[in-house]
């Protein structure tokens, strides 16, 4: 108990003194997750629009597959990316193993089903009269799509925030293809996990507080969005 108490006190000291290592790790975590979600959003928005607005055979099946992948295990994605980029793997020559790039690729794969799936359901939540009204006002297909996305903006934002929440808190990918290299690929989750094993409980608690704060901010943001 005293150990835990001391850890907490030390952790708060680390935070208050703006310990460079703590903030470097937190900053990297944020950067990697924000990058992953932005990349995912960049193609999920148009792709979601296409899937929503076009009728094609297998559409329902595709959507339910995407929804199934919401809860894909992070270690499964980690394994997949590991196999892809390991020395003997098909993309081994790129030498991306144990780099932030590999972590971003893994996280993009992880969050895309969530972001894409939630964007599709955001679009289908828009009143059918919206596209109809837009067409009657002379909108082209593209203009209708932009308007519909705009009408769904809060739900789309929710999709992005949910994706970010999943990315920032995952550990499987970060560990398997990032490797927790100090000053290079170490993130909040990998650091907490490995520093705890090593006995550096103060650093773990400090990082844990930051991670929980981020989760809190995400939750606050979500409920703010949902109130609109």
């Amino acid at each position, binding site marked *: 108990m005293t150990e835990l108490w001391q850890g907490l006190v030390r952790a708060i000291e680390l935070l208050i003194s703006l310990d460079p290592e703590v903030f470097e790790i937190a900053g990297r975590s944020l950067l990697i997750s924000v990058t992953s979600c932005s990349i995912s959003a960049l193609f999920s928005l148009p792709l979601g629009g296409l899937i929503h607005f076009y009728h094609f055979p297998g559409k329902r099946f595709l959507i339910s597959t995407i929804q199934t992948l919401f809860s894909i295990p992070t270690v499964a994605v980690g394994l997949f990316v590991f196999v892809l980029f390991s020395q003997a793997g098909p993309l081994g020559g790129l030498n991306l193993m144990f780099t932030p790039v590999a972590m971003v690729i893994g996280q993009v794969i992880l969050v895309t089903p969530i972001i894409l799936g939630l964007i599709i359901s955001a679009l289908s939540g828009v*009143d059918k009269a*919206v596209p109809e009204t837009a067409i009657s*006002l002379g909108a082209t297909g593209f203009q209708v799509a932009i*308007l519909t996305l*705009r009408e769904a903006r809060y739900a789309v934002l929710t999709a992005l925030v949910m994706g970010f929440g999943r990315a920032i808190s995952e550990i499987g990918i970060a560990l398997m293809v990032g490797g927790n290299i100090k000053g290079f690929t170490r993130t909040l989750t990998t650091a907490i996990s490995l520093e705890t094993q090593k006995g550096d409980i103060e650093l773990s608690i400090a990082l844990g507080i930051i991670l929980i704060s981020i989760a809190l901010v995400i939750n606050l943001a979500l409920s703010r969005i949902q109130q609109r």
Partner: protein
Amino acid sequence: MTLIQTTNLGHKYRERYVLKNVNLNINQGEVFALIGPTGSGKTTLLKLLDLLEIPASGRIYFDGVDVTHSGGPRLEARRRMSFVLQKPIVFNMSVYDNVACGLRWRHEPKDIVRQRIESALELVAIAEYKNRNARSLSGGETQRVAIARALATKPEVLFLDEPTANLDPVATSKIEEVLAHIIKEQKTTVVMATHDMSQGQRLARRIGVMMNGEILQVGSPSNIFSSPKSREVAEFVGVENILGGVIIAKDNNLVTIEVNGSTIQAISDFIVGDMVQALIRPEDITFALSKDISSARNTFEGKISRITPVGPLVRIEVDCGFPLLGVVTKRSAEELGFSVGKKVCASFKATAIHVIKRWN
């Protein structure tokens, strides 16, 4: 000049035809009202005319161009028209931006956009709301925004689907005022759907009566009101006395029709032996307590079978061998001492009767 023409237009939803054989000509600058009961296909027809859906059969010509199927000419034609939907929706943005949509999508220059929006908002009298989020408006205000948004693009054709349904009488007359103004000042071609016969009469120069997906009669309001072509149309436009009979005598165009053992006289071109229906509007029937004061050709004695007050009026049903329904003011009903069972004389002029063919 014909602006919109349809030939044998038909449409179906889930294999069920909801529109059949519609052959319609809308002339440039006219105001045309589609009236008909709920579910008769008015909205469906308007959606086809505004090129929002592709018809199952038939053709649509806009300004001489075949725009039946998809392609560039449809967008071009659609951009010359506007549609205020039956349940208008506004986008989740300011009133100003809502009205701007059509103009921005056409890439109109900024100053023209501003100017058109200002005047459209002015016209429907919601200029003071322009910075409010449109979703926060009331039903009547939403309707105005939808009308302003449709007018901002200066359409050649304006489609209005039940523009005043769900509005109270005051809001209705305000919207009608706006519409009358547009019709008069801007010479816009207007096609409106309504199930309010009197609104059609007030605003339109021509009326098409729709039932079960078909246009049964097209004509001027007075033509449709006084000479409905069929029993269905007659019932819809408020002819409540529909008496089946057969013509038993004819003198020039004054015919004698036998109805349930009684005879009534009317003006008609039908000949002796024709099976007909005599249509009489309730407001054309007058009541008296004794027979001799009426100069009308048709006078019948009967007993009042039912009295129903409707606002300032009273509906009187009289059984004179056949049922007759008339209306009087509340005051005259009291003065004449009307009550159920009382004997009265109902009369109507030969010219007040509209005679149509009967098929069974």
